């Protein structure tokens, strides 16, 4: 717990961007060895605050004290010199290089390679991080890649480690391993600033939490005595709505049938789909869990028709063979999709919302007459989406790129849902979306299913899938596991499937990989 002098103390930190006050008089402190959570919805100002602590941005006003001394952190190098390390949500690694080369590139000082390797092995052994320094990054799982970033930060013997949404890409087992490392670090006196929106993790890990909303500090609490719900409500500043669904609803006829779908990836670092089969019936929400990069993107593209398949039989919508159809014709047959990436894939950032409505709704909603676009119909529809999904935007004429991530996601989901598709496939429907918006999106999906549509949700957020879906399968290395009923699913088993322990070959690969690792397990 915090002793007399906090390791890091912020007072009155204010940061203003054009049109937004990102941080407004934020003050809090982190003691030595404390694991401190920074909580808040998207756009609450967490990232901005952390960027100022790590020297990426400068506060407009306020003081940062480090071990009681006021400091100006001019850049990340200065932050690292003080003993502040950071592990970002998105890794900056070169796929074609080894772990060792990647770490060497990120070091401020030049250290002979052999010395560096010895140091890396020492750090890994000490914290029980399993990683082979000579492996090529492209062959590593996301969890292993994150370990590179952690080792990189630990090599500097930090006194404060900032972790930005570290568990969003990990399997439950990997999360547990990460927590062991973080607790050990804290026990040795290193302070940890932990940013996450997964409240049960914060409950399990952190002893203090600072809650931001709209750039302001709204509350501090002890997560160990709070409930996830109470913290969520503090975050959004209101009551959290539960998903309303009718109990014991029966599923109807099969609406989406995928059988033996195999697609070879064209991307060097992509994943090929191998013999994927699934059936989703009317009223059913089918979840696909898995760690990022296991074929989720490829599956979405194969279902949307952006990458048509060789066999017309492989994908059927309401019995119609759509496997060879391109995206536009599949939409015509009632299949709508929402890809994971909002900017530049699901929406065009420098188009207006109205034009973005034309992008996918033009045929289904009759916005085209004689080759010309009916701009009024597009505007009306965009306005409808904005109103019924409570999208915060200046109107149908607002540029998609000017919306916050959560609001754009609400618009995109609304644009597809209001077209009343018979089958809807969505990837990461609430990625980077705040709790309030996520609840609204979940409810809309449940309502769409209740109206008789079949829905597939591809997500890395296991909690989301467990709360939302009726049926669940796990994708790993391009294979899809047999489906299981969510009511009967066991988190441990799902975690193992996500980690790839489901077949002879994969198990052998894992064993082979383990054989390379010299560092003993902690």
């Amino acid at each position, binding site marked *: 717990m915090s002793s007399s002098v906090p390791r890091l103390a912020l007072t009155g930190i204010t940061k203003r961007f054009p*049109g937004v006050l990102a941080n407004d008089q934020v003050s809090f402190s982190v003691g030595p060895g404390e694991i401190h959570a920074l909580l808040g919805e998207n756009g609450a100002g967490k990232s901005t605050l952390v960027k100022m602590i790590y020297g990426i941005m400068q506060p407009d006003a306020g003081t940062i004290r480090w071990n009681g001394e006021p*400091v100006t952190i001019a850049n990340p190098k200065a932050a690292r010199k003080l003993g502040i390390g950071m592990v970002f949500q998105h890794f900056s690694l070169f796929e074609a290089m080894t772990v060792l080369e990647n770490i060497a590139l990120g070091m401020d000082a030049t250290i002979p390679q052999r010395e560096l390797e010895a140091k890396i092995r020492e750090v890994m052994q000490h914290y029980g991080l399993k990683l082979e320094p000579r492996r090529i990054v492209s062959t590593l799982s996301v969890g292993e890649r994150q370990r590179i970033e952690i080792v990189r930060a630990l090599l500097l013997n930090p006194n404060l480690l900032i972790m930005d949404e570290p568990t969003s890409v990990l399997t439950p087992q990997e999360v547990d391993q990460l927590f062991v490392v973080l607790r050990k670090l804290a026990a040795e006196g290193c302070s940890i600033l932990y940013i996450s929106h997964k409240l049960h993790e914060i409950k399990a890990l952190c002893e203090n939490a600072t809650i931001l909303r709209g750039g302001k500090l709204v509350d501090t609490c002890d997560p160990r005595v709070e409930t996830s719900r109470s913290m969520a409500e503090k975050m959004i500043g209101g009551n959290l709505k539960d998903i309303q669904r009718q109990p014991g609803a029966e599923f109807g006829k099969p609406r989406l049938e995928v059988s033996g779908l195999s697609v070879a990836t064209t991307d060097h670092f992509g994943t090929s789909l191998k013999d994927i089969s699934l059936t989703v019936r009317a009223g059913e929400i089918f979840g696909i869990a898995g760690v990022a990069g296991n074929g989720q993107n490829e599956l979405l593209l194969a279902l949307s028709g952006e990458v048509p398949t060789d066999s017309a039989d492989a994908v059927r919508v309401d019995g119609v063979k759509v496997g060879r159809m391109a995206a*536009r014709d599949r939409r015509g047959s009632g299949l709508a999709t929402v890809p994971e990436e909002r900017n530049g*894939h699901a929406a065009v950032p420098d188009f207006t919302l109205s034009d973005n409505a034309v*992008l996918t709704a*033009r045929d289904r909603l009759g916005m085209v007459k004689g080759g010309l676009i009916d701009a009024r119909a597009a505007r009306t529809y965009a306005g409808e989406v904005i109103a019924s999904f409570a999208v915060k935007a200046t109107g149908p004429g607002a540029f998609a790129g*000017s919306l916050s991530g959560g609001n754009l996601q609400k618009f995109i989901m609304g644009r597809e849902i209001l077209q009343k598709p018979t089958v809807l496939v969505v990837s990461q429907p609430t990625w980077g979306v705040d709790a309030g918006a996520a609840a609204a999106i979940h409810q809309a999906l449940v309502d769409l299913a209740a109206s008789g549509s079949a829905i597939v949700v591809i997500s890395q957020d296991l909690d989301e899938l467990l709360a939302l879906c009726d049926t669940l399968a796990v994708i790993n290395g391009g294979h899809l596991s047999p489906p299981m009923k969510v009511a009967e699913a066991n988190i441990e088993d799902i975690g193992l499937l996500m980690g790839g322990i489901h077949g002879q070959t994969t198990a052998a690969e894992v064993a082979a990989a383990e054989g390379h690792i010299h560092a003993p397990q902690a």
Partner: protein
Amino acid sequence: MRLKLEKRPEPSTLMLFVTPVASVLLTMFIGMVVFDLLGINGFRAVIDIFLTPLLASYKWQDVAVKAAPLIIIALGLSVGNRAQVWNIGAEGQYIIGALCAAGVGIAAGTAGGPLVVLVMIVAGIIGGMAWAWIPAVLRTRYDVNEILTSLMLVYVAFQVLAYLVGGPWKDPNGRNFPATAPLQPSQELPILFPGSTVHLGVLIALILPFVFWLLMSRSVFGFQIRVVGSAPQAARYGGFDTKRTIILALLISGAMAGLAGALEFTGALGTINLGFPSNYGFTAIIVSFLGRLNPIGCLIAGIVLAVTYVGGQVAQTTVHIPNATAGIFQAMMLFFILASDILVRYRVRLVGSASSAQGVKA
């Protein structure tokens, strides 16, 4: 204090209009300074190049005739540029278009009349399209950069022209000069105002911008072009075929360049010689950007660039500077418009001392 570029939340509409005008004014100013430093009356040169053609009514028809091909070619290039397809070879498509029109005219012999002229023009359009089809196929099938291939084909086109006018199509009565026989009057484009040089092509150049405006801003096709240029992945997601869009964009720009070549041949020059290529295809690139890839903008920018063409000739006689001077002004304009483009998406801000006090303890 230092300058800082800050991304605007939305592209600035004001800057979209201000920057082209500012580019023209800056070009005039810098040109004046440079010529003064060279010991030439810079003020006079700039006045003659940019204003005399507008103020002297007898120059208007020259401006109109020169603006027509620039506008027509720029319209096509803007479609390609919107789709992020960079056709640098409009000059070649223009040459081939004119040659195809000439070929039809020669084949028709003494026959003339509206139908023959129409076929000549259609042949020009098809010729330009065919020439642009080569880089289109290379790009979509083999991923060959269309900037290089379209540009190289300009030189091929010029060699084809040189061969034809110096060989098979050489005018037997032309004292052995490499040129085609002058077009017979019945194969010429009608003149709009008797006694002037203003031909039907000028009217076409006035109407086409509005057709293209409708196409680009209202039609599904225009939408498709814009999505493919702005976010190719979103275009595929929205059900548009990216490759087909790229091919179409190149074919349209080729068709427009071919049309301009055929109109120039049948309307203005009436003969093709080695001097036929007059860089309209390259200058139209400047017109396209100065006009902000907007069809109506191309109309205005085409007139501005035509003014510098005509004005260059004026300055040649008044301040005795080479005709190439107009080219320098045109190039400067392109540089300024491309450089000032950044102001549409970014704003310049003066940053105070807060962040310059790096490393100083607060």
